[in-house]
Structure formats: structure tokens, C-alpha cells
């Protein structure tokens, strides 16, 4: 199934199992979301468990916090990650800190889903990857699935989680894997092994990375769309890269990362977000802190540039396999 179907199914499974799960957001109710991730839920569970909201992201998160304090488990959609900023205060100052400041008198088990990343000519307001703006915030968890199987399992785990989870969905992966070769024919999840999604309530635990390609030359840390770009770059260059799909950025599976870098002695970090203070900075930092004496060459970041996401220059902005491939070659020379 597609990632959209997987996400929809995760909602369905969770709503069927637990009356407290409620789903809402802009265009989420009758229509089922502009990407159709919640299609059919209103018809199945009724208007008080899946409904449309006014266009007010802060209100969506704010009411979800209140509902969570009551005892519900809201799973909410921000239509594009680019539109999460109006809700930033409610997320950072309220959802993230409620458990701590009240000493668990009140807690905030909410899931905030949002499509991220580029590759669809969405320009600066339908392409952003704001993960680093959440990983800096204590009290949040940050999840990025890269395939339908993980999307379902991680979303189910996020809904079960007792704390607020930011769930970032790489929109370019909704309908099929994408390795950055934008001029090649698109592929669908239908024929992909990760498109086979187990039925029922099968969880993929938060905080566990997955090695999607074993290798001995260099460790590539990636998540979301960049997992496929990294794999493609390894194939294209012949560099025997070990590609780690982080899956959860916060809390991070540092053990898997460390073990790999200790083995390879080299590390390339890839993300779509702008470079400066991106999540790549934290990753590189953690690797230098824990693997300094194993490093044989400077680590390299391949990222979006420090500019707004452009429209016409999409493919010059997007860190595709050519740029990642160059980094792989360069890190091998270092």
C-alpha cells in the first residue's frame, strides 16, 4: 500500500482500538485531508471523532492540548509543515513542557502530523523540513518515517506514546519511493517490499534506527526521502556506504550510529533542511563526541542550502544523488 494508505490505516486501527483517539485538522473531516491521509475516518467514526477545524494552527494544537489534559488522545494534522509556525508557541511552551511543569499532574499525549520536504515544486511554503526546530525542544519526540511499513508502525507507536510526538511525513514519499532522480519514471510503493504493511496494531518502536543498506566504507545518516537518495548515491558511486535510516530523531538511536561509525570510520550526513543549525549539526556533533578517535576523515553534511526553498531551482536546492555521491567520494579521499 502507499504511505498515505498506511497512515490512514494507522489512524483506523488506533481509533477502533481506543475511543479516546480523536482526529482533526484543516480539511481532515469530510474530505479526508488534502493528501487524503484521513479519508473515510469521519464516515466510520462520526463527526465528533474526526472533524474539520477552522484554519488556525495554534488553535488546533491548543485545543488538542486541552483535550489531552482531559484524557483524550488527539492525533492532529497540520496541512503542511510550513504552516506549523503559528502553532509553535503552543507546541514549545505548552505541549512540550506540560508534564514537567505540572510534575505529571497533567500530560500531553498528542501526535502532530505534518507533510514535510520538497520534490513537488511546492516552493517555499510547501517544501520545508523544520525538524531541527523541534529537536531543540525538550519534551518533544520527533519521528520521520521513510516508507509505508514504518509510517504505519511508527504512527501507531506515536499514538500510544504518553508524550507529544511531532510526526513528519515526507510528502514526496507518499506515493512511492524517490531517490532524487527526478527525470526518471516515478515508481510506486506497490512493487516495493516496504510497501507491504502488516495488518493490525503492529508497532515500530520509537527511538530505533534501521540500517537500510549495510556497508563498510562510510556511514550515511539519513531520514525520510534522503534514505533513498543515499542508497542511490552509494549504487551510483560504488562507495560501500552503510545507510542508516534514523526513523526517530528525538530520542535518537545513538548506539546504532556509533557502532556503524566505529566500523566505517567515516560519516556523511544528509538532510533536506537548510544547513545552518539543521539536525545534521547535532548528528555530526554527537558522532564527533562519541567516535572522535575512530574518525579517519572529516565528516560531511549534504543539505538544502541556506536559502528559502526555491520554486524553479528545485533540483539545484534538493540534495540529490549527485551531491551525495560527491560527498561519499570526498569522504573516502579524506
Amino acid at each position, binding site marked *: 500500500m502507499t504511505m498515505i494508505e498506511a497512515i490512514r490505516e494507522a489512524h483506523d486501527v488506533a481509533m477502533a482500538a481506543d475511543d479516546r483517539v480523536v482526529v482533526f485538522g*484543516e480539511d481532515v473531516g469530510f474530505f479526508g485531508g488534502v493528501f487524503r491521509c484521513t479519508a473515510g475516518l469521519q464516515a466510520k467514526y462520526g463527526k465528533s471523532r474526526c472533524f474539520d477545524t477552522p*484554519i488556525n494552527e495554534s488553535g488546533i494544537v491548543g485545543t488538542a492540548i486541552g483535550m489531552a489534559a482531559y484524557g483524550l488522545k488527539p492525533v492532529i494534522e497540520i496541512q503542511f509543515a510550513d504552516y506549523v509556525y*503559528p502553532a509553535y508557541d503552543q507546541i514549545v511552551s505548552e505541549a512540550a513542557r506540560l508534564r514537567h511543569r505540572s510534575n505529571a499532574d497533567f500530560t500531553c499525549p498528542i501526535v502532530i502530523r505534518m507533510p514535510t520536504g520538497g520534490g513537488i515544486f511546492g*516552493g517555499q*511554503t510547501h517544501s520545508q523540513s523544520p525538524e531541527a526546530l523541534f529537536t531543540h525542544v525538550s519534551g518533544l519526540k520527533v519521528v520521520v518515517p521513510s516508507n509505508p511499513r514504518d509510517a504505519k508502525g511508527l504512527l501507531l507507536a506515536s499514538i500510544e506514546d504518553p508524550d507529544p510526538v511531532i510526526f513528519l511525513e515526507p510528502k514526496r514519499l507518499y506515493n512511492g519511493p524517490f531517490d532524487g532522480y527526478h527525470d526518471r519514471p516515478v515508481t510506486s510503493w506497490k512493487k516495493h517490499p516496504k510497501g507491504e504493511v502488516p495488518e493490525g496494531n503492529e508497532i515500530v518502536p520509537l527511538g530505533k534506527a534501521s540500517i537500510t543498506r549495510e556497508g563498510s566504507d562510510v556511514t550515511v545518516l539519513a531520514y525520510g526521502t534522503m534514505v533513498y537518495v543515499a542508497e542511490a548515491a552509494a549504487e551510483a558511486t560504488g562507495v560501500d556506504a552503510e545507510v542508516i535510516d534514523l526513523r526517530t530523531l528525538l530520542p535518537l538511536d545513538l548506539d546504532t550510529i556509533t557502532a556503524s561509525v566505529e566500523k566505517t570510520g567515516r560519516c556523511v550526513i544528509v538532510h533536506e533542511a537548510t544547513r545552518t543549525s539543521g539536525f545534521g549539526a547535532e548528528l555530526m556533533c554527537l558522532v564527533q563526541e562519541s567516535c572522535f578517535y575512530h574518525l579517519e576523515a572529516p565528516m560531511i553534511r549534504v543539505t538544502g542550502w541556506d*536559502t528559502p526553498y526555491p520554486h524553479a531551482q528545485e533540483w539545484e536546492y534538493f540534495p540529490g544523488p549527485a551531491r551525495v555521491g560527491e560527498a561519499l567520494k570526498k569522504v573516502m579521499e579524506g
Partner: protein
Amino acid sequence: MSDDFPPLSLNVPEPGCRPGDTPDFSDFEIPRAGAVKRPPVDVEPDEIREMAFSIVRVLNKDGEAVGDWAGALTPEELREGLRHMLTLRAFDARMLIAQRQGKTSFYMQHLGEEAISCAFATALQPGDMNFPTYRQAGLLIAGGYPMLTMMNQIYSNAEDPLHGRQLPIMYSSKEHGFFSISGNLGTQFVQSVGWAMASAISGDTKIATGWIGDGSTAESDFHSAMVFASTYDAPVVLNIVNNQWAISTFQGIARGGVGTFAARGHGFGIASIRVDGNDYLAVHAVAKWAAERARRGYGPTLIEHVTYRAGGHSTSDDPSAYRDKNEAAAWPLGDPIERLKKHLITIGEWSEERHKQAEAEVMDTVIATQKKAEAIGTLGDGQAPSPRDMFEGVYETMPPHLIRQRQEAGY
């Protein structure tokens, strides 16, 4: 005691009509044209409270202009207005096709809402500043902005003034009083208030206009705009374009329990007026009234333009999934072009023949311009803009880290 109370339940407003239902606007109260009086521009907001629940209309069913608000425009100006609307509609039609042909990534049309931005534009003065959403291109077309430049922007070609950085239709023209469109809903509404405050701080006579959709009034920036406009009596005209839909969500979700969007102004002591958004004459007259009010220092006005989004939300949208196909046709305020055309014919200043000819001329111009634009380039045809352009303009002077990145990128 709490046993005495029956269980609560959540109220989720629903539109009257979903796909397959019969559109029914019988609940929608439409006052007859000419019924609403035109108050003096220095009226106290409280005295015109009822205007937020009525609708200023000038054109009646017979195509006559009636009442206090009529008479603001000459036949020549009305024909010009008609031409603007025809141009916008033809422009939309061609750009929709161009998008479907893959010449650009995205487009948003104005179908059914042409009167609002076209009629408003001519009520302003040079130097005034609009803070539009993505559905007011009529401000540019009626304001004399070159259509070729609009198309260059849509195609992200080598002569796109925004150098390919922005999504199609996110125009910007300081010279034409058109603030850079943001993809983020609502943000520009409060910015317009700031611009107006700046004009007042500077002892200027310019005014600003803010624009927002019905759905987007729910955004917090709407509140910020109202609070600041009210407190500082900013010379601003705040426009809500209520086209009944926000993508798939009907206006009732944003409006909640209040009668109208215009009524939002009452909580802030702001003069609030509803106008028939499909009536070119009414929009123009109300715009002029509000602009004069602002310019004379009597403060802000909130205008709700009542209209209907006859097309899809954007090229990414198919409205048949959430509203009935016949709803647009059932919309009781009619089509703005048809109504102005009928009026001009009624007063003997236009004819079916001239109309057909005008339509054809307009379409010719649009197509000719389109050819020029496409000769310059379309999205992804391998022509400019250059990747270098993406690094430029982030700051006035490119800082070292961006220079390094640009070099790393090879440009």
C-alpha cells in the same frame, strides 16, 4: 446533581449541501439592491451596526443601478471595469490550461470573484498599498501591471521578476501597490495595518488595504490585525473575501455561531460592512467609501465581500469531492461579468455584439501575451532563472557562508 444534566455532545457545523444533494441557498438572506443607505464617511461604527448583517447592493435584477451607492462610475469606467474582469477571466482560463500542459507547476483562479479585486483597484490612489492574498490578481490587471510580467512569474522564466524563487501567482510589485504575496494564510493582514500605521506615523496620506479569505479569518493574524487597527485607528481597509469555501471546508466552520464575518468587527469598534461581491458597482462604491474614511483619518473599515468560489481551490483541487457540482450555478448573487454586462446593456452603453467582440479581443491579447511569455520560457524548459538566483537576495549582501555554499553548489 450532575446527574440532572444530559450528556453533552460536540456541535460540528455542516454545509447545507454535499455532493448529490440539491443546492439550497434559501436561508441566505439577500436584501434588495439599493436597500442599504450610504452613511457619511465619518459615521460612528456603532451607528452602522446593521450594515454587518445586511448587504450593500447596487445592481438589481433588471440590471439597473439603484440606491445611495449608485452613480460612482461613468459608463466609460464601467466598460473599462468589464474589460478588466473579462481579461482576468481569460487570463485564468489560459493559465489553467498552461498548468495542465505542464508549463508551470500550479495555478489559482478567480472564477466568480473577478468583481472584487477589479472594482476595488480603481477606488485606490497611486501610492496606496494592497496586501493581497492569492485571489486578487484583479488588483494588478485593473492597476495596469503588465500581463506579460505576470505570465513570466507564473512560468518562472528568465524574465520572471522574482527570479523563479516564488510559486506561480505569488506576484510582488511595490510600484503597483501590490505587496509580495505570502503562501502563509493571514500573515499579511496585520502587516497591512503596520503599513497603514507607518503612513500615519509619517504624516502621509496613503492608506493600506488588507485581504483575507473567509476561512483564513480564523487565523490568529486576523485578530492581531483587528486589535492593532482598532487601537491605533489605522488608515486601513480590511477586506474579507467570503467565497463560501476554504478548500473543502465551508464557511460555517470559520464563522461559527455568528451571523456574518463582518460582525467580527463589532468586537473591536471597527466600522463593518457587507457588500455584494459579485456586483462591480457595489464593491467599487463601498471600497471608495472605506478608502476615503481611512484617508480622512476616521480609521479602519472591515468589509466582507460576499461571493462564491465557482472554480476549484487551486489546480491541486477537485471540488466535486466535497460540494455538489450544481452549487455554483445555484449561487444567488449570479456572475459578476454577466451582471455588469447586463447593466451596461440596460443603460444603453453596451450590446451583446460589443460584448462578444470585447471577449474575443481580450482573449486575443491574452493569447498573444502568452505566446510572448512562452517564447521567453516556461517552467523546467531548461532556460533560466539561474541557480545562482536562489543564493542571491537572501540578504542584501551575501554573507560568507552563503558564498561558500554557492561555490560548493558550483554557481
